[in-house]
């Protein structure tokens, strides 16, 4: 086997160079945040923007949401994209209940977050009345940049593990409100204030 450059070949002595150690919990949190699959819960216009975000131009496959699973058994994040009508509310609750743990909810668009411009008999005024919401993405429809920002915020929360403690304790959502990013033609840089977690800092 060729000699690998500048690696101390002193047998067991070089152990710490060749192995990364870390807590299993960090590994699990990292893997959960880096490969979370979305459940297709596209309802109205926001669903078209959600598909656009999955499309080649914005491509959330870069963030681990490679594919949108239709069945709740294989999905981690349910993105409620669009207005929820009174007839659809029990269906949303049923799909949310049938999702496997751990699961998170992104309420995409103002209609899902608060009923939006349709304050009338037919629309549920806010999805947080029936499912615990973690991230609210504002916009009508939210631009793909805003949705990616929402997904990344949720990934950051998953990676910190803070969101799991909250859900275990009270089952409530994290209720994070993010700011909208208007569609741009040039790339967007968003700082999440990501603290350097311990084991990646070596």
């Amino acid at each position, binding site marked *: 086997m060729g000699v690998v450059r500048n690696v101390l070949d002193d047998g067991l002595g070089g152990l710490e160079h060749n192995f990364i150690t870390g807590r*299993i919990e960090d590994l*699990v949190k990292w893997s959960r945040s880096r490969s979370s699959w979305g459940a297709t819960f596209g309802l109205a216009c926001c669903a078209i923007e959600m598909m656009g975000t999955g499309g080649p131009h914005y491509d959330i496959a870069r963030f681990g949401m490679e594919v949108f699973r239709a*069945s*709740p*058994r294989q999905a981690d994040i349910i993105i409620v994209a669009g207005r929820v009508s009174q007839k659809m509310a*029990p*269906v*949303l609750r*049923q*799909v949310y*209940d*049938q999702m*496997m*743990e*751990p699961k998170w909810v992104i309420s995409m668009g103002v209609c899902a977050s608060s009923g939006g411009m349709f304050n009338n008999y037919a629309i549920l005024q806010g999805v947080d009345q029936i499912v615990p919401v973690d991230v609210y993405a504002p916009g009508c429809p939210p631009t793909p940049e805003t949705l990616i920002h929402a997904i990344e915020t949720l990934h950051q929360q998953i990676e910190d593990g803070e969101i*799991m403690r909250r*859900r*275990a304790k009270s089952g409530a959502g994290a209720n994070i409100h993010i700011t909208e990013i208007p569609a741009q033609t040039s790339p967007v840089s968003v700082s999440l204030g990501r603290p350097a977690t311990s084991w990646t800092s070596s």
Partner: protein
Amino acid sequence: MGQYLPVFALTVLGILFGALSFVASRLLAPRRPSSAKEAPYECGIVPTREPPERFPVSFYIVAMLFIMFDIEIIFIYPYAVNRAELGAFAFWEMFAFSVVFFLAFVYVVARGALDWGPVAKARRLVDGVSATRTSTSTIRRVGLEGRSDNDQAA
């Protein structure tokens, strides 16, 4: 004994991998069983009527075909592994063996085990279903002149 070490090592690794994934999911995944999770998933609708137990027979026929060919492969596998030593005679013996299987398959298909729906329907539209039909040949362009009546008034 030495030559069986890899086999032994592989089985241990296999068992280990299987057990590890079970133990890991039991330890790490949060468990919140609920009746909705046990209920069958029917596109978000709470099922009210029980699905019938009896399924049409055409499903079983296709399953049988699969099992038949599966077993055939199991028999061919030992031959395939040491094909060099066995020589031509074994090849023809295997060939005869698979022809017998193939005849059974032809019989079942001829009896119509595989045409469930569209084949019958496509026969009804025989000229519509053709390999040469392209996306520009199947349409006709109707300009202003192609109007059913001939007055051109807008």
